[in-house]
Each structure stands twice: as structure tokens, then as C-alpha cells.
């Protein structure tokens, strides 16, 4: 087994090959661990994949930097939480009469928001490579503009800033077209 620090670096690097390697390393043990819970075997792998994604995101966001336990323990902790959550949802699927009174006031807003986010996601896929890269690095990887400037080789920050603004504007227009077209 690799040293924890090496494993953490691998996770942070985020190359597909590294993620798959970590996935394979712990899969067998996770499947055995999951037999404690009454979850269908096809769901176990689905949950394990989600747990790997959470682990990877947390590593990149620096949340595992001061971790006291091992990465495997953390991963299994995330997986366990997800399994319990799934069990809870399954048991709550029985419709309850009282539920109708508990619909939150902002449900309508929430549905609209979800629709907008979905449109933004589609719009994001339509952007050029460079725009996707800049926006992904800023909003998803949580990188600062200075870091992006260095990594992408921009001559200065103003150039990057105006490029990012153009990308956002383009995304806004793509979404607007669809909202009106819908």
C-alpha cells in the first residue's frame, strides 16, 4: 500500500489514471464492508463511485490536508454515510398524507433554479475549450486568477480577466436563448 502522502498527491493531481487506480485499490474491501448494510449489490458500486468522487473533490479542495485518519477510513466513512442516506430515502418512499402541508414556499423558485443550472450545464458544454478550462479552474478547482494566469500562460491578469468575462457573457447568452426558446 502506498504512503498516505503519495496517495493524497495522486488524488490532488486528478489524472484519470490515478483516480482509477485508487478506485481499484479499495473496491474489493468496500464491497465487503458494504455487506453489513441491506443494500442491493448493484447499488453498492454506484455508491462507491460517488464516494470516490467526493473523496477526490475533498482532496482537491484541501479538506484532507490535515487528516488524522487514513484516506481509506475517510473514503469508507463517506461511503457509509451515503449508504445510510440511501436506506433512509428508500424507507421514506411511502407517501404520507401530511406531506402536502409541508411543501416549502420556495419550491417553485427551487425548481426554476434547477432548470437554470441544467441549462447552464448544457451551455457550458457548448463553450470553446479555453472557456471551459478557465471557468472550470476558477469555479470548480477553486483556483485563484493568479494561479490560472500562470498555468495557462496568460501574459497578464487583465487579459485573463477579460477572457473570463467574455466566457461568462457567452454562457449567459446561450442560456438566455434557451430560456426564451423553451
Amino acid at each position, binding site marked *: 500500500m502506498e504512503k498516505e502522502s503519495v496517495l493524497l498527491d495522486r488524488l490532488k493531481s486528478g489524472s484519470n489514471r490515478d483516480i*482509477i487506480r485508487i478506485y481499484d485499490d479499495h473496491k474489493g474491501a468496500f464491497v465487503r464492508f458494504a455487506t453489513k448494510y441491506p443494500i442491493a449489490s448493484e447499488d453498492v458500486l454506484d455508491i462507491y463511485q460517488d464516494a470516490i468522487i467526493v473523496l477526490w473533490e475533498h482532496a482537491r479542495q484541501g479538506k484532507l490536508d490535515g487528516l488524522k485518519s487514513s484516506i481509506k477510513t475517510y473514503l469508507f466513512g463517506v461511503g457509509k454515510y451515503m449508504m445510510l442516506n440511501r436506506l433512509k430515502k428508500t424507507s421514506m418512499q411511502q407517501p404520507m398524507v401530511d406531506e402536502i402541508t409541508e411543501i416549502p414556499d420556495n419550491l417553485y423558485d427551487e425548481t426554476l433554479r434547477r432548470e437554470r443550472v441544467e441549462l447552464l450545464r448544457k451551455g457550458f458544454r457548448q463553450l470553446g475549450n479555453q472557456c471551459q478550462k478557465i471557468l472550470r479552474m476558477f469555479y470548480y478547482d477553486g483556483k485563484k486568477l493568479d494561479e490560472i494566469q500562470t498555468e495557462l500562460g496568460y501574459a497578464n491578469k487583465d487579459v485573463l480577466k*477579460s*477572457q473570463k468575462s467574455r466566457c461568462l457573457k457567452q454562457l449567459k447568452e446561450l442560456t438566455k436563448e434557451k430560456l426564451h426558446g423553451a
Partner: protein
Amino acid sequence: MEHEALITGYFEGTLTAEQQRAFDRLLVEDAGFAQEVEFQREVRQAITLDQRAQLKQLLRDHEQHNKPTLRMRWWIGAAAAVLLVVGGGTFLWHRASSARVLYAEYYQTYPNTVMPTVRGEQPGFLEQQAFRAYDNADYANAEKLFGDLYRQSGEDYALLYRGVSLLELGRFTTADSVLSGYPAEGSLYVYARWYRALSLLRLGKRDESRELLAELADGQTPVSQEAQQLLNRL
């Protein structure tokens, strides 16, 4: 502080206590500001969902790839038999055409990240001409001007932009040789490698292209993800 800078600071997590107060106040008092912040939060959410979906697909594909079912094994056997019967000629033709398709799918003009329209900057005359030609998609002139610029100034980026201009002109062999000259210590090195991998692919040199892509996929660069995707499809 400008509104845009406040929003950037908010997403970067770099606002000072005072800036945070200004941010919170604007959020309540300025509807336009609040709307922009909300839009960018939704963008963040959309990109996060998109990335998760991609990762999930990667893991699912990996899982399926590892466990071919009996039915799939039969299909693989049948496909291999069909290929043998149809013959190597068609196979080679298919390989060549698929390289072209992949090239077309992955190739995108490298953006001008060096000399965009920034007020107050005074670049050299030749540099300005070269980028203007490049931005106007006049690649024949851009290729010549970046060549001149490299000879005069020795700027590394001129090699990359000349290489990409050559790719745009369909001069793959020359592009390959120009891009191979980009120094490893240059700040745009990974991009020079990426475009070289694409030119090799287009030239039918799959093994060499694959080697470069594997190297790029292994690192932590902005092109690693694309390199890995392309590698998986080669």
C-alpha cells in the same frame, strides 16, 4: 473596490473583513449585484455537476471495461472475425480515417493568450502584426510573421503560434518539426506537446502520438484530461 473584483474575491475566498462587509451590503442593496452573484453561483453549481457526471462516466466505463459479460465476449469474437474476413485494407482505411476524425474532434485553434487588446500596452510592431493576422485567421501570414518574430526575438511562444498556424494550413509535417523545437522550460510547453501529438496523429504516426499523450495524461496539466480521453480512444 469594483464590483467585479469583490465577486472574484468572494469566489476565491480572499475578501478581507471590510470587503466582506461591502460585499454583504451590496448583496442586499444592489439588485444587479445580487443577480450577478447568484448567476455565478449557479455557474459554479452547473460546472460541479458536469464534472461529477464526467467522473461518474469514467468510473462506470472502467467498471464495464473490466467485466465483459459472456455476451460481450461473443461480440468481441464476432467483431474480430468480421475484421479478418473483410480484410486488412478496409481496416487500415478505417484507422486512417478515424485518425482524421479524432484529429478534427480534438483540434481547436489555440487562443491568443499573449497579446490581446489590453489598453496601454505597446507591443513591438512585428508582434502586433503577427497576432493581428492570427486573430483574423490569416494563418498564411501569421505563420510567416511568427517565423520572423522567432528569428528576431527568440520568443518561445512564436514557435507555438507558428506551429498552430501551420496546423490550420494543413501543413502537418512542418508543424510537427516546428513544435518539436519548443523548449521544455517554456511556459507553453504542454500546449506545444499537445499540438504535436495532434499533428502526429493526423500524420498517421499513432505510436508516437500515443507516447506524447501518455506523458501529458500522466501530469497535472490543463490538457491532461483531454490527452487521457484521446488516448483512450486511440
